[in-house]
C-alpha cells in the first residue's frame, strides 16, 4: 500500500496538479491507509462522480469501498450514520450544494448531535463533501453557497480549501477527524492548478487554523474558498492605489480561528470580509461581529462586507453581476475611511 509518506521522484515534485486531483488523491490515500474509510454517493463509483473527484476509487478499492447509492441524499447520509455507528469512516459525496438539502434532517438532528446526545459514547466520524458556490455557469440549484446553514448547526465542523495543497491536507484531516466535517469544495477552483506533488504532499495544519495568504499592512481581507483567489488578485491591484492588503484564508469556518483573524486586524486596523454567500444572514455578519468585539480599539473603520446579493442564485448569464469580484472588493477597501474628515 502506498501511504502518505512515500518519497517523491524529483521530477514529479514540481508538476502542477489540480484541486480535483488533490482531493481524489486525499481520498485514495485515506482509503489505502484505513480500511474503515468508505466513499458513498451518487455516481461516485463507475463514473467517478460528476466532477470526477472519485475517479478510479471503485476500480482500485472495489464497489463496496466506493459505492454508487440510490439517488436519495437523506438515505445516503442516514446510512452513513449507521455505518459510522458500526465503526466505519464514511465519506459522503453530495453531488451539488443544493442537492444536499434533502439530507438536512439527518445532518442536523443526528450527524451533528450524536456525540453530544450520547455523552461522547457514539461519535460519528463522517465527512460530507459538498461542491459549492457559483462561477461555473451552472443552471438553477447548482451554485448555492450553503455554508451559513452548516455554520449555524452546533456539532459540525465546516471546512473549505482554497488551494491545491489545502484541498489534500484538509480532506485528509477531515476524514481522520472523529467529528463530523462538512467539507465544502469550491467547485470553480476544482481545475485551479498549483505545483504540488501528490506523492509527497506538504504538511497542512490541523482543522481550525486560518492562514495568512498574503501579508500586508493597511487592511485585512478575510475570506475563504472560492473568494480567496479574488482577494489575492484584488490585493495585487490595490498596490497601485497604495493599499497594502493582507489576505486571511479562513480554511475552517467552524472551528473559527479568532486568534489569527484578530491578530491580523489588530495589525492592519481595517477589515473587509469577502464571500459569495448572501450578506444578510451570511457568514460575514458573524465574522464582522467577532472582529469588532475583539479589535474595536484597533479599528480605523467599520468592518465591511463584500458578499453575494440577498437574492436567489442568479441564472448563469447573470451570475457575474452577483459574484463578488475584484472591483467590488476594491470599492469596499476604498470605503475604509482612509482620510479622516475633520
Amino acid at each position, binding site marked *: 500500500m502506498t501511504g502518505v509518506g512515500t518519497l517523491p521522484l524529483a521530477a514529479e515534485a514540481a508538476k502542477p496538479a489540480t484541486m480535483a486531483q488533490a482531493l481524489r488523491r486525499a481520498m485514495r490515500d485515506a482509503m489505502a491507509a484505513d480500511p474503515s474509510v468508505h466513499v458513498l454517493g451518487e455516481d461516485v463509483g463507475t463514473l467517478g462522480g460528476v466532477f470526477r473527484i472519485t475517479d478510479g476509487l471503485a476500480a482500485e478499492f472495489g464497489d463496496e469501498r466506493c459505492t454508487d*447509492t440510490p439517488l*436519495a441524499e437523506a438515505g445516503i*447520509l442516514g446510512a452513513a450514520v449507521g455505518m459510522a455507528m458500526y465503526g466505519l469512516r464514511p465519506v459522503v459525496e453530495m453531488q451539488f450544494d443544493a442537492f444536499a438539502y434533502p439530507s438536512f*434532517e439527518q445532518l442536523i438532528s443526528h450527524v451533528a448531535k*450524536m456525540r*453530544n446526545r450520547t455523552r461522547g459514547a*457514539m461519535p460519528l466520524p463522517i465527512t460530507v463533501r459538498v461542491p459549492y458556490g457559483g462561477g461555473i455557469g451552472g443552471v438553477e440549484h447548482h451554485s448555492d453557497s450553503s455554508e451559513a446553514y452548516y455554520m449555524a448547526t452546533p456539532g459540525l465542523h465546516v471546512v473549505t480549501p482554497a488551494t491545491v495543497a489545502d484541498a489534500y491536507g484538509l480532506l485528509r484531516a477531515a476524514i481522520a477527524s*472523529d467529528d463530523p466535517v462538512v467539507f465544502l469544495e469550491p467547485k470553480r477552483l476544482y481545475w485551479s492548478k498549483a505545483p504540488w506533488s501528490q506523492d509527497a504532499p506538504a504538511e497542512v495544519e490541523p482543522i481550525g487554523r486560518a492562514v495568512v495568504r498574503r501579508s500586508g499592512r493597511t487592511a485585512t481581507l478575510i475570506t475563504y474558498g472560492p473568494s480567496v483567489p479574488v482577494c489575492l488578485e484584488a490585493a495585487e491591484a490595490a498596490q497601485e492605489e497604495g493599499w497594502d492588503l493582507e489576505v486571511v484564508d479562513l480554511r475552517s469556518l467552524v472551528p473559527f480561528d479568532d*486568534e489569527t483573524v484578530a491578530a491580523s486586524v489588530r495589525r492592519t486596523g481595517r477589515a473587509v470580509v469577502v464571500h459569495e454567500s448572501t450578506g444578510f444572514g451570511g457568514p460575514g455578519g458573524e465574522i464582522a461581529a467577532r472582529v469588532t468585539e475583539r479589535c474595536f480599539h484597533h479599528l480605523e473603520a467599520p468592518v465591511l462586507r463584500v458578499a453575494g446579493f440577498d437574492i436567489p442564485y442568479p441564472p448563469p448569464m447573470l451570475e457575474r453581476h452577483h459574484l463578488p469580484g475584484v472591483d467590488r472588493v476594491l470599492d469596499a477597501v476604498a470605503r475604509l475611511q482612509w482620510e479622516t474628515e475633520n
Partner: protein
Amino acid sequence: MKKSSTSVQELPAAAAYRPTPPPAWRPRTDPAPLLPDPEPYRALGTDAAADADPALLLRLYTELVRGRRYNTQATALTKQGRLAVYPSSTGQEACEVAAALVLRAQDWLFPSYRDTLAVVARGLDPVQALTLLRGDWHTGYDPHEHRVAPLSTPLATQLPHAVGLAHAARLKGDDVVALALVGDGGTSEGDFHEALNFAAVWRAPVVFLVQNNGFAISVPLAKQSAAPSLAHKAVGYGMPGRLVDGNDAVAVHTVLGQAMERARRGEGPTLVEAVTYRVDAHTNADDATRYRDAQEVDTWRAHDPIRLLEHELTRRGLLDEEGIAEVAEAAEEMAARLRERMNAEPALDPMDLFAHVHAERTSQLREQEAQLRAELAASAGEGAGDQR
C-alpha cells in the same frame, strides 16, 4: 465494464424506417412471494402456539406484565412531574417485548421514542432508558453496551441508520441483524421510503417492524395511507411484507424471528406490520377523547396482549393463579424500585453542556464554558450571602 461504441448506427429515413420491438421486458422480481398474507398471522389459540417452547411463552408473559407495569408507572411519574413526558406503549407490549426478545446479543435495536419498553426488555437499566423523557440528558445509555441506538424522536430517521449499520456489519463479515422500529405515522416519512429502498438494494440484514397502532397522535391511518396495508408497501421495494397480529406476542416473536433468520441467510430485509392499538393517549399531554370513540378503545382493550397469552398459558397448564400472582408481584417490585430511583434527583453537571459537542472544545466553547462557570460561581456566592 464494457463501454458503449462511439459509432452509432444511423436510422433510415422515414420512408425506409421499420419499427422494431424494444428490448425484452420482464419484471425484475416476481412480486407474488413478496405479498403479505390476507390476514394478520396469529399463533395464540392455534397449533403454532401449542408447539412453542413453554419457557419462551413464560418469558414473554413475564415481560408483558412487567412492561405494562412499567408503562403505568412511567405515566404516573409523569403526572407527578418526575418525567417531562411519557409516550405510553400500553396495548402494544407484545410488539415491544417480542422485538427485544427476538434479538441475539450481537444484534442491534433501533427504537423510536415510544419504544422505551423494548429498550428495557433488551436489558437496559430502566432509569437510564428514561433519561430522555426525564430530561436530565438526551440518551442515558451507551448505545454500544447493549447494541441499542438512541431513542429516536424525529420520525423514521433511525431507519436509515439501521440499514447503514446492518450494511457495515455485513461488509465486515459479522453475523449481525438490525431491527428497526417505527409507527404507522412514520411510514409516511421520506426516511421510511429511503431506508427500505436502500435496504433492499443493498440486501442489508435489517428487519423493519411497523407497529400500526391506529393513530399518529390524532390522525387515523385512513388519513395517513391509501395502501392496502402497510405491509404491502414492501412489494414496491422488492422485499417481502408480513402482517401479524401485534397483540399476539407469540405471533410477533415468530414472524420477527423468521425475518431475522432470512436476514442472517443473506436474503435481505423484511417489512413486518404488526396490527395493534395505542390504548393510551399519544402522551400524557394528549386528550384522545377528542378524536376517537371509547367503544373502539374498549374493543381493543378486550383484545389484550397480556390476557391473550395468559389464557393460552393457563389453558395449557403452564400457569396458574399462584404463578400469575408471582409475576404480578415481581412487576410491582420493579415498579417500586423504579419509583424510588426516579424520585431521587438526578445528578446534573451544567459543564456537561460543553463536554461532548466536539471531540475537543473549540476556543469559542471554552470561552462560553468559562462564562457559565463564572455565572454559577457568582450565583452560588450570592446564595451563600457573600459580598461581592
